[in-house]
């Protein structure tokens, strides 16, 4: 079904390009070149692949952070705030202890980011578990708090680089994730200076995060409890699962993933906090990635690859084919739309009395989640 949605989106997108006087083949050619480094016409394929992977890395980790709570029937809209909390913690530690060597400092900043993200999400988890405050509302509010905290910290606050700037000091060299190729301007690899390839070792961390997610969900008792709570809180409680504890733990783990995404972004790419995080949307794109990936580890990685490639490719498409990169936003919206539409159709089949055997569908889409408390099969591997 997700594949069908993607194909449908691209077909409709091609019609839009053609109707508005553009050349869909030129547009998609440049999009594919920019996204995957294939079918390029003069552009450096290695550079395109490298740029795409840099976009994919945070999408995987935040995608996991949205997908895990989905399983417990929790809608984590706060991945963005948790990501910012993680990036703040990473930067603060990376500046404060900038003299420490990599083997000590790098784990410190990454764990620091995870803890900060976990605390940020944990607030929503505790509120949900104790007073029943809806996590959608609380995580949205926590997003705003994170963004304003960041604003304060780098504009006039303690992390500001200097008067008149809106960024922080750079983190110490020991807090940085290495790039996979040496960051050397004079070394030529694939025809360009090696430093243009920004792919960093955070890629391994992101893949590990997806693997941990899949293992946790399907191979541990905690994962079983998360799924049980997601299917029916009453049944879970009857079976002896502590619903409150599970909700809190789920949010803590999700926040840790998001916080890790923020820390990896600072340690691997940016090396300082900048005002770009005011308008960052990674944590919101993550919702789409989690939905498209059907909440499975492999699916999230594939969805992140698609969205990362669309992001990177959209920019190249505008440069090379003159088609506005806003087309990419249209494609993303169409993909989500057709997933949601199919989903509604699937739900209808499940209304008691009409129900046949349900086809595989993601038990994650939150607004409808209460309607489908029984649907909890493992996702297609």
């Amino acid at each position, binding site marked *: 079904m997700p594949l069908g949605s993607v194909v449908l989106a691209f077909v409709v997108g091609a019609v*839009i*390009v053609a*109707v*508005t*006087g*553009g*050349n869909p083949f030129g547009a998609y050619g440049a999009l594919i070149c920019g996204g995957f480094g294939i079918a390029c016409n*003069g*552009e450096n394929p290695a*550079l395109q692949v490298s*740029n795409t992977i*840099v976009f994919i890395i945070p999408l995987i980790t935040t995608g996991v952070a949205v997908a895990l709570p989905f399983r417990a029937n929790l809608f984590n809209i706060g991945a*963005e705030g948790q990501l910012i909390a993680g990036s703040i913690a990473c930067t603060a530690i990376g500046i404060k202890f900038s003299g420490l060597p990599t083997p000590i400092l790098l784990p410190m900043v990454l764990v620091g980011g995870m803890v900060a993200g976990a605390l940020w999400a944990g607030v929503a988890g505790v509120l949900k578990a104790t007073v029943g405050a809806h996590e959608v509302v609380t995580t*949205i509010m926590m*997003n705003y708090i994170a963004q304003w905290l960041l*604003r304060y910290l780098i*504009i*006039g606050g303690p992390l500001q*680089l*200097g008067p*008149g*700037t*809106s960024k922080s*000091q*750079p983190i110490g060299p020991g807090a940085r994730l290495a790039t996979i190729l040496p960051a050397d*301007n004079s070394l030529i690899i694939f025809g*360009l*200076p090696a*430093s*243009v390839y*920004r792919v960093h070792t955070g890629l391994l961390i992101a893949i590990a995060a997806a693997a941990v997610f899949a293992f946790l969900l399907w191979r541990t008792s905690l994962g079983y409890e998360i799924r049980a709570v997601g299917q029916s809180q009453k049944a879970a409680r009857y079976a002896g699962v502590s619903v409150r504890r599970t909700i809190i733990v789920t949010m803590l783990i999700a926040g840790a993933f998001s916080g890790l995404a923020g820390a990896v972004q600072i340690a691997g*790419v940016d*090396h*300082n906090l*900048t*005002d*770009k*995080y*005011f*308008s*960052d*949307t990674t944590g*919101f794109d993550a*919702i789409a990635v989690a939905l498209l990936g059907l909440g499975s580890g492999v699916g999230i990685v594939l969805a992140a690859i698609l969205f990362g490639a669309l*992001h*990177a490719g959209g*920019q*190249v498409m*505008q*440069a090379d084919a*003159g*088609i*506005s*990169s*806003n*087309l*990419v*936003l*249209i494609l993303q*919206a169409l993909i989500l739309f057709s997933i949601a539409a199919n989903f509604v159709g699937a739900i209808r089949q499940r209304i008691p009395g009409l129900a046949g055997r349900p086809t595989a569908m993601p038990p994650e889409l939150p607004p409808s989640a209460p309607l489908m408390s029984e649907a909890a099969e493992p996702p297609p591997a």
Partner: protein
Amino acid sequence: MGHKRYRFLGVVAALMVLATACGGSTPSTTTKQYKIGLVTDIGGLNDQSFNHLAYVGLEKAKQDFGIKDDVTESKSGDDYVPNLTHYASLNYDLVIGVGFLMAEAVGTVSGQFPSVHFAIIDGAGTDSKGNDLKHANVESLFFKEQDAGAMVGVIAGWLEKNGKAKKNQHIIGAVGGISIPPVDHYIAGYRWAAKMEDPQINVLVGYSNDFTDSAKCKTVAQSQVQQGADILFQVAGGCGQGVLQEGTQGGVYSIGVDADQKTADPSVIASALKKVDVATYTAIKNVVNGQFAGGALTFEIKNGGAGYAIDNLTVPPELKTELDKIQGQIQSGALVPPSDKTW
């Protein structure tokens, strides 16, 4: 969830733009065709400000010099480095970055491609601490914002002094985005000129700490109106739309910034102009004429790179005389508007 919502609004807007616009194609006939790549900041081409003006300059250069021009609109701060790298890796003759926010990205990429020329509006190629790396292949296009700020300051001060404003309590306001040098230069010139015209005047200065969200600027503007200000100068990019709107809603005058913002709101009486189109065109011309030089190029009233526009206001002849006099004195160097933040 705000951002997601805007994103979908953006999709709708994009559909409308796509529905009306046509895909352009560039004819290529000349022998040596210069290739110019323009990378906008996250404001996009329709910001009615810097990015738009840079594009205007690019289009003019295309007509005059027959260049091949390509544009990329950055969707997020993550896009600056890859977008600049894209053009540099294709050996473009000039890669232009629009805006202060891209300084570090230009610093990084210009170091990787020493044989490619770069120009950056409002900034230099810097390292992560904001120090100018002084790469020989980077031309920094700076503006004396204080020149333009001073001209609109003359208008505001003159109106207050002569009782031609709305409340005439000798209080005017300025709403900055983030306190960065270009913003503060504008406000410095504005304060200086207003005080020169009307020594009694009190200039309120506030910052929204944002360049995009108009609600944040509106809040600052409202508080200034409550304190009696009746002329508001917005120096906050897209955020400043909120200041202009507060002009009408609060019953006061407003002043636009960077581009001519006459149509943004009926309350806009004038705009302080930073002629990014002139700067962009000049940078391209320099490359085409083989006169590209690294370092700073400054655009000011003297060379036609800064100025002002009269908008929804009928200018009394005395004010026009005063404006011409001050502009002449700034041009000749007899008056030098200050750029320091002294508030």
